């Protein structure tokens, strides 16, 4: 399990280095999908099955689909992936930087962190993260109302930004 967790963590860092190394938006969206998948694996390894499911369904299924669709607005005739040299060079520079930073902490790792949630709670009926999220729906009424208000406000912001016919926030000159 430790090896699987190390593989997921390395995939997380490698995937975000691939996103940050300025490829074309097609490939950057693909890299962010891979990062989200690796993050799901990390959360499952730590015992947060419900948060991992939320990350997989809401983030990967909802938001990243919109991002991958919006990559069509940034289309290029010659998309630049990780096979071309400038992108690969920047990505290798980032990974060398990460490895140098890991070398600073090498040998001083705190190894007791692989304990997952609810490891010592035998005979517990529900997982810890499910109970916490249910607690938000139980007594967190104010912050839920604030979240609903923010989402409604964002709807009007989006409608105002993308309104056409020279009445929007950004006008077609």
């Amino acid at each position, binding site marked *: 399990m430790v090896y699987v967790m*190390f593989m997921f*963590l*390395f995939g*997380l860092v490698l995937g*975000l280095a691939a*996103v*940050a190394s*300025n490829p*074309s*938006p097609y490939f*950057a969206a693909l890299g*962010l999908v891979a*990062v989200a998948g690796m*993050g799901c694996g*990390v*959360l499952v390894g730590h015992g*947060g099955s419900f*948060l991992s499911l*939320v*990350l997989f369904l*809401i*983030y990967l299924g*909802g938001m*990243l689909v*919109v*991002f991958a669709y*919006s990559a069509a*607005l*940034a289309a290029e005739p010659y998309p630049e992936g990780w096979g071309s040299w400038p992108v690969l060079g920047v990505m290798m520079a*980032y990974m060398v930087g*990460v490895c140098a930073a*890991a070398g600073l*902490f090498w040998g*001083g*790792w*705190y*190894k007791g*962190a692989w304990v997952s*949630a609810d490891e010592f*709670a035998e005979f517990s009926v529900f997982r*810890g*993260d499910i*109970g*916490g*999220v249910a*607690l*938000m729906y139980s007594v*967190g009424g104010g*912050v839920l109302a604030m*979240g609903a208000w*923010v*989402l409604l*406000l*964002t709807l009007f912001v989006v409608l105002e*930004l*993308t309104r*056409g016919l020279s009445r929007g926030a*950004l*006008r*077609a000159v």
Partner: protein
Amino acid sequence: MTPTHFAFSSTFLLGLAGLAFHRTHLLSALLCLEGMMLSLFIALSLWTLQLNSVSFSASPMLLLAFSACEASAGLALLVATARTHGTDRLQSLNLLQC
């Protein structure tokens, strides 16, 4: 410092470096912002799971809701610039007349 702490800290800093240094497309900058938000989600979730403080596990959900707001506003800006300028390259956004 545990390996998981190092992993999400380095992903946050990598997203920040990509947002700061590489700005060819507006969508690339937005994707780096999303990577930073993803590392923050993983960080808050790991805080909950490693410390067994289950009542804190509502905060990654709220962070996900707010990052949905951020992503939708950014994509609306992307659509608006694609309509006015015809492209989303950041070099063409400082033109006075388009």
